[in-house]
């Protein structure tokens, strides 16, 4: 772990001398090869929620979790690479909000910039919080703390401070290049840490057939039960899944979120930028095997004492006494008093988030266990650094330069970018501590962000492919889409939940079989309302002159011929390959 930390900061130091202009710092000088951008593209998304969360969902919902990849990511990644990247990269916008200003107007950009900046801060704070919690649970810092004579309760604070300093060091010094390089490093590290885990786990349970033999068929089929929400573990029917997750949420994230788009914008040429998400789609497609399979393996093992240890031979903790109520390697949730948490029916609530950590501890001996834990921590840090670099760019270009200090020198903006990194991380730390105190506030904020994000893709779709779309329409469309999301959520409730943060705070006129179904339908409503309102308002407002929209709208942009490239570098060919492979995977695990 120490070796890794040293390398991470070392890269920042090595890259510092190249950071001469703000473009170097925020856009990596637009000089990165496509494969590097591609790996950074998925690695930035590979934060806490991804590795721990997908392992947990794998244990909870089975292979159906792969919908978040094969339906919920790949088609959108192909779309952004083939159709949208020409406008992002070609317009020379430096960020997604800046594209909105070029295409629409200042207020649409302001709305997007401010909501996005706030969101990145909280995401990085939540990432930090989750990491500190995990370090505490796994007792990773106990041995060094013990030798320093500090109380074990300092573990949480130490984790936050150390992770903040490491990310701060490499982002302040090397900017986006440093973040991208580290993300690539983290990508390889995660693969290196999880591949042997999957190998050992599969060997132990007897391969895919062994899992099939241990678990009911709902766990090992991703589509079979999708006809009705009652027959699959997700509690969603196919239409809500495909439209809500596969279309609205996935396209909204992969095609408009600056956190990922920024990685492609750093590419050295237009065709490299377009290839970035397509190259990223290839490893993304096989990630379910790295993160979902361990979760599945964990539930298919016979129940046994879940041992959590440090790997340093100190402070061994056995949760054996609660394993009786757990399932496989998944222990029951423990409340403050040390008793297992039970639901209304008296069945123990399982702590699925411990699926991956327990798998690591179960199969890895000292040595490689250190590598596995480092991989886990690397994934937290890459998620955090991704948010921080997206924040400093949007803050500097779209908030500071746009509204606070217009005509400063480039050196000043470079300095501002570094400062933004510092206070961005400081704010993340406060967000992390806020999360420890007010868990409900975090849930509430994530809900608000979901409302703000859901309609975004409708705005981009119309903006890029319908030249008649106007700025007023985009703005009102976004606001009404967000309102529609809030109202829909306020009027519906997932089965078994009490009215409140889960929905139904206005009135309950419809009940969904699961929270996931409710989320997907909230997104579908938000998108549709935004789409319709934007069209209606566009028709009654004055469109912009066509000459102003060249390079920003599909019909007014000259298509670059990419005929001179070899076939494997042509975005359309790559897109078809990627989509075909995703289709094959869906059929195999039908």
């Amino acid at each position, binding site marked *: 772990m120490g*070796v*890794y930390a040293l*390398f991470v900061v*070392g*890269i920042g130091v*090595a*890259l510092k*001398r*190249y950071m001469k202009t703000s473009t170097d710092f925020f856009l*990596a*000088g637009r*000089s*990165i*090869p*496509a494969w*590097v951008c591609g790996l950074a593209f998925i690695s930035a998304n590979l934060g806490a929620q991804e590795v721990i969360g997908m392992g947990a969902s794998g244990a909870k919902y089975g292979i159906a979790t792969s919908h978040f990849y094969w339906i919920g990511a790949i088609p959108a990644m192909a779309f952004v690479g083939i159709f949208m990247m020409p406008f992002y990269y070609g317009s020379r916008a430096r960020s997604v909000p800046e594209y909105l200003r070029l295409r629409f107007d200042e207020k649409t950009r302001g709305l997007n910039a401010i909501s996005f900046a706030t969101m990145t801060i909280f995401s990085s704070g939540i990432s930090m919080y989750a990491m500190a919690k995990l370090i505490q649970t796994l007792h990773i810092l106990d041995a060094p703390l013990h030798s320093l004579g500090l109380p074990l309760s300092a573990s949480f604070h130490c984790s936050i401070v150390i992770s903040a300093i490491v990310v701060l060091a490499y982002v302040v010094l090397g900017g986006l*290049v440093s973040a991208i*390089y580290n993300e*690539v*490093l983290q990508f*390889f*590290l995660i693969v*290196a840490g999880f591949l*042997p885990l999957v190998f*050992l786990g599969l*060997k*132990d349970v007897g391969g895919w057939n062994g899992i099939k033999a241990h678990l009911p068929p709902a766990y090992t089929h991703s589509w079979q039960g999708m006809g009705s929400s009652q027959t699959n573990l997700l509690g969603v029917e196919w239409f809500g899944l495909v439209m809500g997750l596969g279309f609205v949420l996935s396209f909204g994230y992969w095609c408009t979120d600056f956190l990922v788009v920024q990685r492609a914008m750093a590419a*050295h040429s237009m065709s*490299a930028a377009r290839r970035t998400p397509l190259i990223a789609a290839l490893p993304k497609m096989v990630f379910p095997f790295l993160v979902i399979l361990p979760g599945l393996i964990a539930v298919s093992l016979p129940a046994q004492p879940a041992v959590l240890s440090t790997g340093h031979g100190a402070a061994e903790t056995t949760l054996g006494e609660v394993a009786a109520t757990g399932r496989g390697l998944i222990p029951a949730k423990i409340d403050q008093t040390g008793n297992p948490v039970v639901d209304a029916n008296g069945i123990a609530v399982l702590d699925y988030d411990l699926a991956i950590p327990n798998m690591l501890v*179960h*199969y*890895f*001996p*000292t*040595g*490689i266990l250190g*590598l596995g834990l480092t991989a886990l921590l690397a994934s937290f840090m890459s998620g955090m650094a991704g948010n921080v670099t997206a924040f400093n760019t949007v803050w500097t270009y779209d908030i500071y330069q746009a509204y606070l200090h217009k005509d400063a020198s480039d050196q000043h903006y470079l300095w501002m970018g570094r400062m933004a990194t510092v206070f961005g991380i400081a704010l993340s730390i406060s967000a992390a501590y806020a999360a420890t105190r007010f868990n409900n506030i975090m849930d509430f904020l994530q809900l608000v962000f979901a409302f703000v994000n859901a309609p975004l893709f409708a705005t981009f779709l119309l903006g890029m492919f319908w030249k008649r779309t106007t700025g007023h329409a985009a703005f009102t469309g976004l606001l009404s889409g967000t309102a529609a999301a809030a109202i829909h959520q306020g009027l519906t409730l997932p089965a078994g939940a009490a009215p409140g943060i889960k929905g139904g705070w206005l009135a309950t006129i419809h009940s969904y079989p699961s929270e996931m179904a409710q989320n997907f339908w909230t997104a579908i409503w938000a998108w549709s309302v935004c789409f319709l309102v934007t069209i209606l308002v566009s028709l009654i407002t004055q469109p912009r002159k066509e000459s102003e929209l060249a390079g920003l709208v599909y019909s007014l942009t000259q298509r670059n011929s990419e005929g001179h490239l*070899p076939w494997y*570098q042509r975005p359309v060919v790559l897109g078809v390959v990627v989509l075909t492979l995703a289709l094959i995977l869906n059929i195999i695990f039908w």
Partner: protein
Amino acid sequence: MGLDIRLPIGLLFSVLGFLLAGFGVISDKGIYQRSLGLNVNLAWGVILLIFGIIMVVFGNRGSTIRPHEQDTAINRDHSAGGKP
């Protein structure tokens, strides 16, 4: 950018692979009960070491031809082929 990403990746994995494989050789075999009797430290350490060395080699070739490169695999193979 001036630093070829393959160099740091290669170095990191060479170091990690070396440490892991080294630990695999000297460690007590009893700890491998968890990993189904396989000495995963040694096996995986060697694999990481090989991966790291390959990355360093490619990274070195990449940075020597950097000034006039086009960043296509074909180009890289071509220039690499020129050297015995």
